[in-house]
């Protein structure tokens, strides 16, 4: 029988995979991919807990997370294109302008 703990452990694993990606990536586009992985992991957790409590609130929250993710991608990719036009690269080490 698949319980809520199975889904929570899975979403924890997926979230940690996304977190590892955020920590080790130096390319901005790959950082975006890692963020998407983390958002999806949280969506699974919301839906599973909503099912466990027989409540629709978890699914509602997952909807709004998806809406936020979609708008984040639209704005973020626009910014990435501007950055690429300016620097010719998406590497964080070459983009970094602040000294310190």
């Amino acid at each position: 029988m698949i319980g809520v703990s199975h889904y929570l452990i899975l979403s924890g694993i997926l979230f940690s995979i996304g977190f590892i990606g955020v920590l080790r990536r130096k390319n901005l586009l790959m950082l975006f991919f890692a963020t998407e992985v983390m958002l999806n992991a949280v969506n699974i957790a919301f839906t599973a807990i909503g099912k466990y409590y027989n409540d629709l609130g978890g699914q509602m929250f997952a909807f709004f997370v998806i809406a936020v993710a979609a708008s984040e991608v639209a704005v973020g990719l626009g910014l990435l294109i501007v950055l690429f036009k300016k620097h010719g690269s998406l590497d964080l080490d070459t983009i970094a302008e602040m000294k310190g």
Partner: protein
Amino acid sequence: MYEQIAFYLFATLTVILFFITVMSKNVLYAMTSLAAGMVLISGFFFLLGADFLGVVQLIVYVGAVMALYAFAMMFFDATKDIKATHEKPLLVFFLGGMMALVFVVIFSAPVIGANIEAHYPIMEDVGNAQMVGMILFTKYLVPFELAAVMLLVAMIAGIILAGKKMDHSLTTNIEDVKEELLKGKK
């Protein structure tokens, strides 16, 4: 029985695919495996009885977001391998594992506490999409409208940011091309 088979199949495939997304050096491989992982994640939503959410996941993530990434990749050099060398790879994995532990504890603490009551209970005889519609347009109407405005703002921002200087080439310098053309005429 079928639920267990589906869960473990989807879980292993998603973990493997997202691991490829995070570890691959090629942007194209990472994006493809991310898209495949999103499709499998919608399978979890169907297993959990959230049919509408699964369909939205397929349409928005696999359809819209992945197409946006694919189009944006035309601006970047996707064939080149990216370098992702962290000084302390073990520390990264340690922090990631700790993060997973904290995440599970945060989410399972109220489950163990078990004093949460359902505000919007799922009814058995009403379909999932119908149920979602009823709740979304009554209790969550204001957040829904705010999300609509947010998506509009994001769309305009994306168009303005990406559309600026669209006629200039990214890879070849336009001045050089003009000079070459002038030289050719002379």
